């Protein structure tokens, strides 16, 4: 009888259209929407598009730009154009900002004579050189003809690292604009350093620096240490929330178990209360059957997300399935508990449970992912007590952590929640007496 009741419960659940719609179709639909809307999050950063307006020629800027472009793999996407075209691009949103290079009042600017002079020393392609050590090597062997050393150095300095005024023009604040500003400040700083170096080399003070410039420029500075081998895409957090939402929707599927066993809440409850069958023979198969069908729904959702939408849950997929099943069992137990509280009708309880579920999902970051983050940092107790956040945390730890320590704690929390909900539910449904039915 026990197993037959389980079978009947499974049949009952699978024939309920609402279950199929809300537990299977709805999460699949939501997963597809998430994929479309948030699929671009966490992808590689794009190069920042920028227009450069050279009202005066700045060779060092071009040189620095090429150098940074090579070392960062193209963080800036610069296009040189006239001022009017640059503003049009900015207004159309095609560039994040305009870099305007102007001459500084009183500063000497390069002339055609200087250009010829530079070509004589550094070769015809002198203005395309980006290698500092190569330039410094050439500089050491300079023996200008027909002019004295000091004026030759000045001429070279003004041609290569002549003073200019650089302004950044943007339309709005943002991280792209701040990054752009940072790059330009870096260019200006490097240029200042190059001028200092040039000046000191003419007096002999900077010879040590000139000799080491290549090593200094390519010297080690920062080591990058990856924090995890898991999937670091922030978009995955929405998928964890989706799985948690499906799991907790088990509440809606399970509420009928306690309602149908209480004579004051349903006609079936009346019949069952009059029958000689022990309540445990009705409630336990109901719980097990609902757990099986609901776990099936959760597993379908996880499979769809993993294999159809291609969401990367890390390298411990069997444990992701296990988490889904544990979450589903917890959801069912919560539904059983809520169903046994008070004398409200099933419709009213469904409405309340739906509102509670969605609030728990909101606190866990289903709609705005930063909500859970705020609680995690400021009030972690909320996330420990929120069953939806517990499921999310378990999936997150599974993906990000190298060991299973934190994950197992979350699994244990789910077990405790489940036990507490079932015990409370049983306490509220057992040994009820009715004056009349």
């Amino acid at each position, binding site marked *: 009888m026990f197993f037959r009741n389980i079978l009947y419960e499974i049949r009952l659940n699978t024939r309920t259209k609402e279950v199929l719609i809300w537990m299977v179709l709805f999460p699949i639909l939501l997963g597809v929407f998430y994929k479309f809307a948030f699929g671009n999050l966490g992808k590689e950063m794009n190069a920042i598009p920028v227009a450069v307006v050279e009202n005066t020629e700045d060779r060092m800027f071009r040189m620095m730009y090429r150098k940074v472009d090579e070392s960062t793999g193209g963080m800036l996407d610069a296009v040189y154009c006239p001022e009017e075209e640059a*503003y049009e691009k900015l207004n159309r949103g095609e560039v994040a900002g305009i870099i305007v290079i102007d001459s500084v009042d009183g500063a000497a600017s390069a002339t055609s004579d200087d250009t010829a002079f530079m070509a004589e020393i550094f070769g015809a392609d002198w203005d395309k050189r980006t290698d500092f050590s190569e330039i410094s090597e050439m500089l050491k062997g300079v023996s200008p003809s027909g002019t004295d050393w000091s004026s030759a150095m000045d001429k070279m300095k003004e041609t290569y690292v002549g003073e200019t005024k650089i302004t950044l023009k943007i339309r709005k*604040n943002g991280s792209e604009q701040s990054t752009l500003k940072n790059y330009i400040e870096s260019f200006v700083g*490097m240029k200042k350093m190059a001028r200092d170096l040039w000046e000191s080399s003419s007096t002999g003070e900077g010879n040590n620096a000139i000799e080491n*410039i290549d090593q200094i420029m390519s010297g080690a*500075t920062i080591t990058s240490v990856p924090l995890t081998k898991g999937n670091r895409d922030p978009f995955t957090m929405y998928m964890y929330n989706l799985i948690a939402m499906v799991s907790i929707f088990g509440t809606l599927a399970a509420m009928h178990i306690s309602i149908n066993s209480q004579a004051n809440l349903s006609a079936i409850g009346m019949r069952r209360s009059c029958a000689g069958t022990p309540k445990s023979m009705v409630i336990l198969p109901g719980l097990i059957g609902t757990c099986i069908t609901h776990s099936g729904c959760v597993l379908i959702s996880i499979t769809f997300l993993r294999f159809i939408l291609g969401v990367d849950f890390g390298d411990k997929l069997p444990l992701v399935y296990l988490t889904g099943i544990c979450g589903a069992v917890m959801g069912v137990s919560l539904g059983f508990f809520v169903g046994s509280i008070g004398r409200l009708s099933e419709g009213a309880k469904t409405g309340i449970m739906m509102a509670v579920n969605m609030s728990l999902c909101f606190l866990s970051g289903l709609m705005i992912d930063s909500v859970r983050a705020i609680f995690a940092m400021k009030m972690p107790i909320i996330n420990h007590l929120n069953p939806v956040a517990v499921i999310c945390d378990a999936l997150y730890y599974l993906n990000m952590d190298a060991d299973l320590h934190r994950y197992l704690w979350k699994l244990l929390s789910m077990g405790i929640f489940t036990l507490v909900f079932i015990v409370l539910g049983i306490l509220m449904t057992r040994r009820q007496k009715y004056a009349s039915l």
Partner: protein
Amino acid sequence: MQVFKLFFKVARSKLWIGILYTVIFFAICFPMVNASEQKVNFEDTSLSLYVRDDDQTEASRALVSALAEKHRITEEPMDQQKLMDAMYYSMIDYSLVIKKGYAENLGSVGSEALKQDLLEEFHLRDSYAAAMMNVYLNEYIRNTRVAVAMGDDLMTAVRKSAERAVIDVEIVQDPKDEVYDKNFTPKFAWFFRLLLYIMVAVIMSMLGPILLSLNREDQRKRIECSPLKPSTYVTQVFLGSAILVAIIWLIFVLGGAALYGGMYTGTNSWMAVLNSLIFALFVAMFTIFVSTFQPSSTVMSMIAQALGLGMAFLCGGFVPQTMLGEGVRTVAKVLPGFWYERANDILCRDQMGTMGDVWICFAVQGGFILLFLILTIIRSSGHAKVKSRK
């Protein structure tokens, strides 16, 4: 006005769902829109940095001070897992460890010292923040080393490096930009952006069941055998629908005004209000069309969620359209929600466009209303003919 009265009698029973959605919607909107001031000057992005100083020298502390001038520093000890969580949740933008021997290696330009890494960065994912900090730190260290190589002592070199070149940044406005309006900020535009989902959810959840109740077989038969003319019946249903939708729309617009801090000001704000009215009319028309198929309330609810969430995700209701992929945007053009969100984005300058483009968005939404009106008429007349033949 029997049908009209009946309409609002049914509407009263669906009131709770509207109230539930409205309360949740405003609870979410309030923190998002609260600080909606427009920044007119450039503000550098200040990052949240985690710094662990293993060197504890004058030079390392100077680096921390230089960073603290512009950014927020957290020096509270964190293990790697806590740090990973903080970075995953974007509570920390960049984490830096100043390695033991930092000052010693920074102050020497010998080839061995130059090979030593001075800093360590715990990396979670590529970001503009990480790129920005790496550029800064690389420049800082190189400048210091060059200054040391040029003969300066370490602390003088460090001080020189900390004096960063600062460039002028101007926020420019296009004088020909007729759409720019400082009264309608991108932050406040979030209210109208999210309104797409909530209007679909509320209007379809309230109007849908009412129309289904009125079109129920027994109800319909009673009305058909009554002396009420069909045209009067349709007029009263349309009037009831129009008033209900107008009330729902008005509640949201007035709620928006409360969030805005008073009555809307500026052309763009009022254009956004008009945009929301046109979209509300589309949702009403769509609901009337769907109700002619007599779906069950579960199916109606499913359609409402699918349409609302679908348009919100695909058309830029939950994320700005500029963040959506090109393919998604192309597909989304067949949905009226796309044109609703595009108009909002242009009005708040999140997307480039002219006032002409905004009117085009209104016209496309108007086209959708007309399309569903025609489809509803065709569907109703076809349905009536079949019934009369029977």
